[in-house]
């Protein structure tokens, strides 16, 4: 497919049917034109050309959002795409949130995929609708469809001056064959795509009517709070629930059994207290007397684990990328440098903790309301837990009060379904903040061992990287090494033009449920790579920005396979979405320019820079920090440039970069999950702090690079450069190199 969207794309009917999941069958008929010149009488009724659009007789349009809204603005941007291609009037459009159903295609809202993987599908849904309305009008008027145009909620025939509103045409359009080909609008004709449209949920967000997973209320509903084993894989030894049952409002105490191994998306088991309100359930739960057997994972202690992981990274692992001869380069180097970077476990900690409500109907079917990123998987997991068919499960997707990867796992939804089945009543499960932080799917802790060489001219001649982290795959099976997919998140896709490079994947066992967190492995891979590039710049006595540009090297497309690496490119074609060094350098130059890179700063202040491609988007960030005499760090300001190709809503892209700046600051300054005897030490925002208003920078300035390239990811793309930009700035300010996160564990005095 052409990379340039200024060319009109044509989508085949086969693609359309495949993309939309619509039933085919006998509809491939060339558009026909009525012989008579008088207008036909239009049939009434709705027009549902595909699963995403429902045009009503009165002209109102319902558009289905099949992706989950968690703050990325997808309910607005998805609507923009379909409404634009359809030429719908924004004021006539309302949105329906899809339930979990394979007929909508991929609904798993993670990997920053909503636009990058669905842009053409959404455009197609709108363009097919518009074309069928045009064909309906042409048929009614007895004129060629090519003479008619769908524009702003009506079809017009210029020669005769006739026009018919979309609503008037709805019933007739429903009788039209689905067109074999549709023509997408040219970008210069976009009405909504590329425009900073206001949030469609803006009013609801400000008056308290926005409904999240935690907000579901059903008649006769019970509220559940669940005590779970503090160690993954542990077992219940004994429970005394007499105290819990004595609490006013407590209705029942139910044992959910033990968790399974591997844990997957399954509930962790435990003891549930059900009550007439949330407070009573929590109080009753606090009165439970439970003994647990922690099992094998109780052997985990963070300091010892870190030591072992660092030893693993230093001793080497499986070679996953190799070019040139690093050993020869080290032997002939003018200078060499080695460094080990550590980053801890993290919790997603969305402001809305996991929460779900379920009811079992008289026919055995189950209906759920939940804040899920992945309603189809939720459907399968609930069906599995209940022993019924997925078709008997309805997953209603609420708004998500943040997700960041946590809510792609439906364990909490299955808990609600199991309790609804056991009680025969609607049950809402609300995780406490402590539940969320102690029983999560954690972002892996990691260790990166780097060794580099420079020649007499200061050029980097060798780069050895050994990465160690427990794999997400271990949550679903037995493994002690990273997966190829994880290594493709900022590691084997290294863009540096260094002639001799070796990357090795080292062993690390998992003792917790390891899961996705916004940007995933890119967080620690970008931290290590951008920090080490900065260290090499200083070793070579060069400006870090200039040196980074030289490391990235000539304009080219990086092909990891040429260095023997397996690379999955975020599930998309490397030809359509290359690793384009020119784009990476362009955001780097832009961010540097925005920050007025190279200017003099007072003592104790510094600028740091980092650039990283992830999720098919390119982001560079400059941080300005000041470090007090006492070693306190303040991030004064951030500048970010993003090239995400074609963007649908530039204001939401800016918002995501602003939020990524704060999210990245949180993990840089504060974020740390640790364990003792297999149990998590943190529990709430006192022990797991995140950035607050008083730490927010004076400004986060974002530039969205104009582009007609295919859309890349946005939601996760902004986080990876933040930590290394800050730590590089700290070096510029103080001369102290930060090689471990978070900064609260690092002395800068």
């Amino acid at each position, binding site marked *: 497919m052409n990379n340039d969207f200024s060319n009109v794309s044509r989508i085949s009917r086969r693609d359309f049917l495949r993309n939309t999941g619509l039933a085919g069958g006998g509809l491939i008929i060339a558009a026909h034109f009525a012989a008579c010149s008088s207008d036909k009488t239009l049939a009434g009724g709705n027009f549902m050309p595909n699963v995403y659009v429902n045009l009503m007789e009165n002209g109102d349009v319902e558009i289905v959002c099949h992706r989950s*809204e*968690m*703050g*990325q*603005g997808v309910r607005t941007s998805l609507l923009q795409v379909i409404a634009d291609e359809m030429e719908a009037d924004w004021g006539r459009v309302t949105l329906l949130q899809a339930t979990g159903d394979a007929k909508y295609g991929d609904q798993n809202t993670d990997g920053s995929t909503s636009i990058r993987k669905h842009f053409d599908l959404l455009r197609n849904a709108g363009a097919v609708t518009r074309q069928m309305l045009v064909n309906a009008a042409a048929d009614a008027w007895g004129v060629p469809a090519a003479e008619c145009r769908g524009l702003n909620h009506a079809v017009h025939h210029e020669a005769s001056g006739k026009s018919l509103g979309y609503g008037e045409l709805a019933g007739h359009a429903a009788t039209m064959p689905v067109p074999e080909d549709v023509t997408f609008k040219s970008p210069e004709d976009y009405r909504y795509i590329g425009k*900073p449209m*206001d*949030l469609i*949920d*803006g*009013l*609801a*967000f*400000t*008056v*308290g009517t*926005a409904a*999240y997973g*935690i*907000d579901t*209320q059903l008649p006769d509903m019970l*509220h559940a709070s669940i005590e779970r084993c503090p160690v993954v894989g542990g077992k219940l030894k004994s429970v005394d629930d007499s105290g819990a049952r004595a609490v*006013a*409002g407590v209705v029942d105490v139910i044992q959910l059994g033990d968790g399974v191994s591997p844990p997957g998306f399954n509930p962790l088991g435990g003891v549930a207290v059900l009550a007439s*309100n*949330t*407070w*009573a359930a*929590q109080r009753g739960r606090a009165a439970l007397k439970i003994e647990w057997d922690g099992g094998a994972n109780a052997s985990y202690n963070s300091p010892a684990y870190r030591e072992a992981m660092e030893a693993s990274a230093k001793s080497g692992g499986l070679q996953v990328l190799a070019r040139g001869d690093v050993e020869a380069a080290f032997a002939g180097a003018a200078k060499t440098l080695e460094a080990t970077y550590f980053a801890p476990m993290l919790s997603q*900690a*969305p*402001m*809305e*903790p996991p929460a779900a409500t379920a009811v079992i109907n008289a026919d055995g079917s189950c209906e759920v309301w939940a804040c899920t990123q992945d309603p189809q998987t939720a459907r399968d997991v609930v069906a599995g837990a209940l022993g019924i068919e997925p078709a008997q499960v309805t997953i209603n997707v609420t*708004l*998500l*009060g*943040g997700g960041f990867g946590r809510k792609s796992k439906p364990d909490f939804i299955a808990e609600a379904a199991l309790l609804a089945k056991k009680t025969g009543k609607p049950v809402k499960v*609300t995780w*406490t*903040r402590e539940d969320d932080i102690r029983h999560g799917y954690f972002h892996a802790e990691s260790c990166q061992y780097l060794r580099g060489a420079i020649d007499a001219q200061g050029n980097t001649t060798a780069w050895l990287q050994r990465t160690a982290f427990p794999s997400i795959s271990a949550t679903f099976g037995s493994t002690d090494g990273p997966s190829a997919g994880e290594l493709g998140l900022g590691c084997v896709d290294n863009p540096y033009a260094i002639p001799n490079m070796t990357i090795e994947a080292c062993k690390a066992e998992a003792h917790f449920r390891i899961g996705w967190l916004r940007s995933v492995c890119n967080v620690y891979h970008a931290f290590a790579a951008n920090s080490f590039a900065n260290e090499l710049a200083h070793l070579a006595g060069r400006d870090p920005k200039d040196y980074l540009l030289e490391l990235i090297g000539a304009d080219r497309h990086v092909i990891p396979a040429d260095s023997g690496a397996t690379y999955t490119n975020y599930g998309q074609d490397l030809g359509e979405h290359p690793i384009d060094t020119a784009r990476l350098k362009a955001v780097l130059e832009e961010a540097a320019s925005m920050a007025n890179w190279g200017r003099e700063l007072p003592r104790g202040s510094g600028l740091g820079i980092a650039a990283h491609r992830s999720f098919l988007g390119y982001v560079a960030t400059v941080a300005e920090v000041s470090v007090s005499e006492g070693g306190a760090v303040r991030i004064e300001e951030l500048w970010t440039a993003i090239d995400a190709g074609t963007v649908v809503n530039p*204001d939401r892209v800016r*918002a995501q970069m*602003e*939020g*990524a700046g*704060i*999210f990245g600051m949180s993990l840089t300054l504060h974020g740390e999950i640790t364990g003792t005897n297999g149990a998590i030490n943190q529990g*709430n*925002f*006192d022990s797991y702090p*995140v*950035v*607050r*208003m*008083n730490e*927010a*920078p*004076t*400004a986060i300035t974002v530039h969205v690079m104009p582009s007609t390239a295919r859309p890349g990811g946005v939601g996760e793309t902004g986080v990876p450069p933040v930590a290394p930009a800050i730590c590089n700035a700290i070096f510029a300010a103080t001369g102290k190199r930060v090689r471990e996160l978070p900064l609260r564990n690092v002395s800068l005095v």
Partner: protein
Amino acid sequence: MAIAMTLNGKVHSFEAEADMPLLWAIRDLAGMTGTKYGCGKALCGACTVHVDGEPVRSCSFPLSAAAGKSVTTIEGISGDGSHPVQVAWRELNVAQCGYCQSGQIMSAVALLQKTPSPTDQDIDLAMSGNICRCGTYTRIRAAIHKAAGSAS
């Protein structure tokens, strides 16, 4: 026991334990879900409401302490979203996921009632109890200035 108060301008009587946090009474008993749970320990501000005009963290405020007082939640700020703070929030598209914004708006409204033209430092002091995990702080700051009429 019965605990009576004025809730968003109407007399409301709760039949509940005296130590039930106001948050759960508002959400589970009165059925008003605009006020959010985030931490249960007055650490995040998602549950912020006004009691006699003062912002309080309702997750850690016993129901009995609100007896006889006037409680205002996000639903009671204007009803139709016309309060200048709500308008500014929409004009700047502050929200991302939106979950914490009820509490943010309640804190901002309380700030502006006392300090009609706040400085950035005033905003830091008044708003640092409200966590936004999506990271909308710079827009919140701008929206408060805008609502105060002090935006450039």
